[in-house]
C-alpha cells in the first residue's frame, strides 16, 4: 500500500509540474529586475515589482484591462440570458425546431473563427461597430451560445421537474413554484455555463486584434501582443510577463473556486450531451 501511494505521488507530481512550470516561469520572469531579465535563469536573481507598476503607469494597460473585464462580463451575461431561454426550451418543451437549434449550435461551435474575420471586419466597418465594445461582444456572445446551450440543457434535463407540480399541489403559485423549487436547482448549471463562457470570451485573441484598432476597445490579450516597451531600445519582456500574469489571475481564481463545475460542464456538454 505504501509503495503504491509513493508511486502515485510521483506520478501526481509529474502531472502538477507539467501544468505549473510554464506558469511559474512567466511569474518568475515578471518579478525579475530589468538588469537581470536576460540572465536566462529560471528564478529571478534580483526581485522587483517594478514591472507591475510600469504596465499601469507607462504601459497603458489599464484601459485594455477595463475593456476586457467589461466586454467579457457583458458577453457572458447576454449569452447566459439567451442561452437559458433556449436551453430551457430544448430540455423541456416539444417543438419542431428543437433539433435544428441543436444542429445550428453545433455548427457554430465548430466554426473556424477566421472564416468570420474578413466578413465581420467589413460589415462592422460599414455599420460603425468596428473598434467598439459591441463589435466584440456580438461575436463573443455568438461563440459562447453553443457552449451555454449544450451545458445548460444537459443540466436542465436532469432537474426533476415534477417537483414544480408537487409544489403547486401544496398551494404554491406558478411563479412561486418556479422561483422556490426550480431556480435553486437550475442555478449550478447556469453558474457553470457562465464560468465557461467567461473563460472563452476572456481568452479570445483573433477577434480582438482583427476587430479593434485602438485602446477604445482593444482587450488585454491583444494589448499585450502590441507592447513595445517604453522606448525603442527597451525590451518589453518585463511588461509583457507582468501583464500576462495579471490576465491569468482571474482565471486561476475561477479554476480554484469552480473546479468541480468546470469539469462537469466540459464533460457534460461534450460527452454525455
Amino acid at each position, binding site marked *: 500500500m505504501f509503495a503504491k501511494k509513493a508511486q502515485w505521488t510521483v506520478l501526481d507530481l509529474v502531472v502538477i509540474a507539467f501544468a505549473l512550470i510554464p506558469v511559474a516561469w512567466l511569474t518568475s520572469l515578471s518579478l525579475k529586475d530589468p538588469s537581470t531579465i536576460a540572465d536566462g535563469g529560471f528564478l529571478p536573481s534580483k526581485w522587483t515589482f517594478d514591472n507591475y507598476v510600469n504596465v499601469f503607469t507607462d504601459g497603458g494597460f489599464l484601459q485594455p484591462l477595463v475593456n476586457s473585464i467589461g466586454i467579457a462580463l457583458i458577453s457572458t451575461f447576454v449569452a447566459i440570458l439567451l*442561452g437559458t431561454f433556449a436551453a430551457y426550451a430544448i430540455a423541456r418543451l416539444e417543438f419542431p425546431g428543437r433539433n435544428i437549434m441543436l444542429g445550428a449550435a453545433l455548427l457554430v461551435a465548430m466554426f473556424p473563427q*477566421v472564416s468570420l474575420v474578413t466578413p465581420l471586419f467589413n460589415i462592422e466597418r460599414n455599420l460603425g461597430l468596428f473598434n467598439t465594445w459591441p463589435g466584440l461582444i456580438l461575436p463573443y456572445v455568438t461563440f459562447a451560445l*453553443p457552449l451555454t446551450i449544450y451545458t445548460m440543457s444537459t443540466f436542465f434535463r436532469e432537474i426533476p421537474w415534477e417537483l414544480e407540480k408537487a409544489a403547486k399541489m401544496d398551494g404554491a403559485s406558478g411563479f412561486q413554484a418556479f422561483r422556490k423549487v426550480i431556480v435553486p436547482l437550475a442555478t449550478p448549471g447556469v453558474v457553470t455555463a457562465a464560468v465557461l463562457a467567461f473563460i472563452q470570451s476572456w*481568452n479570445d485573441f483573433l477577434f480582438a486584434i482583427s476587430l479593434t484598432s485602438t485602446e477604445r476597445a482593444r482587450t488585454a490579450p491583444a494589448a499585450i501582443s502590441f507592447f513595445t516597451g517604453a522606448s525603442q531600445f527597451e525590451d518589453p519582456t518585463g511588461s509583457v510577463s507582468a501583464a500576462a500574469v495579471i490576465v491569468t489571475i482571474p482565471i486561476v481564481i475561477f479554476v480554484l473556486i469552480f473546479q468541480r463545475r468546470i469539469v462537469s460542464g466540459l464533460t457534460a456538454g461534450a460527452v454525455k450531451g
Partner: protein
Amino acid sequence: MTTDVKAAERRLGLWLCAPAAAFMLLVAGWPILYSVILSFKRYDLRFPDDQAWVGFSNYATVLTNEFWWTSFGVTMIITVVSVAFELVLGMALAQVMYRTLVAKGLLRTVVLIPYGIVTVVAAFGWFYAWTPGTGWLAAMLPDGEAPLTEFWPAIGIIILAEVWKTTPFMALLLLAGLAIVPEELHRAAAMDGAGRWQRFVRITLPLMRPAIAVALLFRILDAFRIYDNIYVLTKGSQSTGSVSILTYRNLVSGLNLGIGSTMSVLIFITVAIIAFFFVTVLKTGTPGQGGR
C-alpha cells in the same frame, strides 16, 4: 384541449429559441454567406473603386499559390501531430486522474490551469523560454541556437505550446469516458488472467470509443484553427504560418477582402469536410445524440 396545450408549447419553444437563433444567424450565418459573395469579387480596400465580379478567379489565385499550400500543409502537420500527442498524453493523464490514490481533488484543479490560461499569455511564456538570452530552455541549448528562427524546431515548439494548453481538455473528456466503463468488467477480466494492458485494449478502449471520437473531433477542428500560438511564437515567419495566419495577413496587411474571403470559404469547407467525415464515416453522432 391537449392540442391547444401542445400548440402553446410549440409557440413558447420557438419564442424562447428565437433570440439565440437570431444571434447565431446574424453573426455567423450572414457573414459566411457574405464572405462567399465577396470571394467571387475583386475587392481590395486599397483600390475601393476597382470592384468587379470575377467568378472563380480568386479561387484559382489562391489554389495555385504556393503560400496557400505551404500554410495548408503546416496547419495539417500541426493538427495531426499535436492531436496525436494530446490523445496519448490525455489518455495517460485521464488514467492518473481517475486512479490516483493521492490528492485527487488537487490534481483535477491544477490540471485545469492550462485549460483556463489565455492562449496568448501561455504562448509568451514559451516564446521567452525559447528565446536565447531570456529563456531558461534556450539556455540549455548549445550556444548560438535560436530554435524559433528555424522551421522544424519552430514547428516543434508551436506543437509543444498547443499540446500543453489543450491536453487537459482532452484528458477531461476522456476522464468522462473512463467513468462510464464498469469496474466489474475489469475485475472479471482480471480474474480470467488478463493483464493491465490487455484490459485497457480489450475493455476500456472499445467502451470509450464514443468519448474518444467526440474528443478527437473537437480537438482536430480546434487545432485546425490554430492562430494565437503561431502569432506570438513566430508570427508565421520561415513559412510556419497556418491558414488562419495567412488569411488574417491578407486582411490586415493586404486589405484584400476578395482573397481573404476566398481563404475563409476554403477553410470553412475543409472544416466541414472533416466534421462530415467524423459524423458519418465514424458514426460518432453529435453531442446531444452521442454517447447514448
